[in-house]
């Protein structure tokens, strides 16, 4: 029996790496896609040594669509595709400099959605596939401290929900992941309450289960669902005065 293959986009991300280990240990062949070939090759060698699985790597910069083609043309069936690409960026810089704002929005939304549409199309032709998009609870309600990142993620969440709806009829499933706080290199300079913080491995476990159970939206720690219900229910006249 042919092994299942998973395509991991933004494979150098801490969460993506944990996913690669999780799926490789369950017998998946892996295709790693990211912008730093040196790191991808280190991961490749590691996965092959530990799990004796097939691992391919592609160098790709999301913001350079010319680098997409090779991946889209690759003949391997894509059973699962996970997108971990994301850019938190500096809110203050984004407010001062349109180029910074643009980069945050383009990375988290414009180019990412463009690329995932093509992957969905590929899966439509295959007549099977699951796309996992890592979005964020930051997209649930815009806050002063990160509304560029947050609004791009809000757009991404809406995109994933639309994609799920549109491709349902082609047997292509879409999962939206909202991790809450995760202790990764993206957030290394922040101090998070431990109780609300997941590890990349926790997230990878959740994603693996979500793929099997064909879940639609998952929060990594259930408490985040509750927090978001509360955050969303605060009337705007109070919300706008809060320091968030």
């Amino acid at each position, binding site marked *: 029996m042919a092994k299942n293959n998973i395509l991991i986009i933004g494979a*150098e991300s*801490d969460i993506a790496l944990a996913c690669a280990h999780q799926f490789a240990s369950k017998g998946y062949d892996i295709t790693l896609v990211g912008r*730093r070939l*040196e*790191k991808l090759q*280190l*991961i490749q*060698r*590691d996965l092959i*040594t*530990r*799990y004796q699985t097939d691992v391919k790597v592609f160098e790709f910069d999301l913001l350079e669509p010319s680098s997409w083609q090779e991946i889209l043309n690759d003949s391997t069936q894509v059973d699962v595709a996970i997108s971990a690409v994301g850019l938190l960026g500096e809110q203050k810089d984004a407010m001062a400099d349109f180029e910074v704002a643009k980069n945050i929005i383009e990375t988290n939304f414009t180019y990412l959605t463009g690329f995932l549409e093509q992957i969905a199309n590929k899966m439509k032709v295959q007549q099977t596939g699951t796309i996992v998009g890592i979005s964020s609870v930051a997209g649930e309600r815009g806050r002063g401290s990160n509304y560029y990142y947050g609004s791009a993620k809000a757009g991404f969440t809406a995109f994933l929900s639309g994609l799920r709806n549109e491709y349902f009829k082609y047997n292509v499933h879409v999962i939206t992941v909202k991790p809450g706080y995760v202790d990764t*290199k993206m957030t*290394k*300079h*922040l*101090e998070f309450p*431990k*109780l609300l913080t997941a590890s990349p491995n926790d997230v990878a476990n959740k994603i693996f289960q979500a793929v099997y159970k064909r879940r639609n939206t998952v929060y990594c720690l259930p408490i985040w669902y509750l927090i978001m219900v509360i955050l969303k229910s605060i009337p705007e006249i109070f919300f706008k005065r809060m320091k968030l």
Partner: protein
Amino acid sequence: MPRISGWGNYPSIDTNLELFDTIEQAKSIVLEAPEIVYQGNLRSYGDSALNERALNTRNFSYVFDFDKKSGILHATSGLLIGDILSFVVEYGWFLAVVPGTKLVSIGGAIAADVHGKNHHIDGGFSNFVVSFNLMLPNGEIINWSKHDNEDLFYATCGGMGLTGLILDVVIQLVPIDSAYLQRKTIVTKGLEETFQVMEDLRGTRFLVSWIDTSAEPKKIGRAKITSAEFINDSNYNVPRNRAFSIPSYLPGFCMASQTIRAMNACYFALPIAREKVIDFDRFFFPLDAIGNWNKVYGRKGFIQYQFVVPKKHSEIAIKRILEKLRELKLYSFLSVLKNTGKCNKGWLSFPMEGMSLALDFQYSDDLLPKLELLDEIVIGYGGRLYLAKDCRMSQSTFKAGYRHYEKFKNFRIDRGMKARIESKQSIRLGL
């Protein structure tokens, strides 16, 4: 900025945390930082991996090669011992030396030259290191392999990360015929018997005892002594043991002295299986089954006090320590007593032939002066304290225990390591 502490949650400091996942990234951080500490998985208890600026290896975690025939493993320093075991055991290999938690990085294991329950037979972790690459503060990478550059090796193994950043390591694994061990447990009535049994069992590969430091004077030093050997049933399948986690700090009073005495009493009253076959995970790493167990000591944290004393004085020294604990009303839950074998040549390596005792004390302001009284006893008998557990010993206590102190310090000065690589501990100890 995250506030970071070692496993004891004391002390903690606001840290400018740096991560890297390639050698190039490591080099640029090492070169630019005026003063930095290297950090593994923060399973040292005190301040040996702490400073205002830290370079953590957790993202530099890769397996390069593993030869199933010879048991030679090549991997980077951020890889955890648990990650290694999770894939080598099924091929019949094991790490020769493992500490009491598998959540320790290879870099941390070398830097502290960690010891296991088999130190009296196999020695420390660094005995099984075949070669490594070390990045000096000037960015230069030195390859060390057996029989060359002895000074560098003896300074680095046990050198608490103060000689450079350990990048990747080749280690020799040891063959096993099963993932299971035959464990024997003996309960003793007092210290004298504990020592006798520990001595009688010195020939067994894995040997450790949990001693009761809070029993009434007659029973003090009673222990559960556990000895074990791997069996040979060729069964390498181990069920994944699910970890239960302490989600948050418990209130400090949970580990008050009465609780500890009660817990020790319960532990010794529990019925035991005298002989049992048990998987390696549960034998070597029972504490890992409770994630964040360090939080039971409350927000202020705790201090682990581990010392070793030479064989010829070990019984009297430990007796004096136990008496002192009683006098000072210091209580420790499940204190670990181990036989230690000959010291190796690591300049700051902790073990020496004799006995080591590890005690846990909840932090409080009056704890520190009390520990100094224990130091006097340890030093008086020619012993020393373990750097990987320490956050408070004085320079004089340190110098009394580690005779290669000057040599180590001069080595650091000569090689441009001093002032570039510093931990809170190295500054305190004048290393």
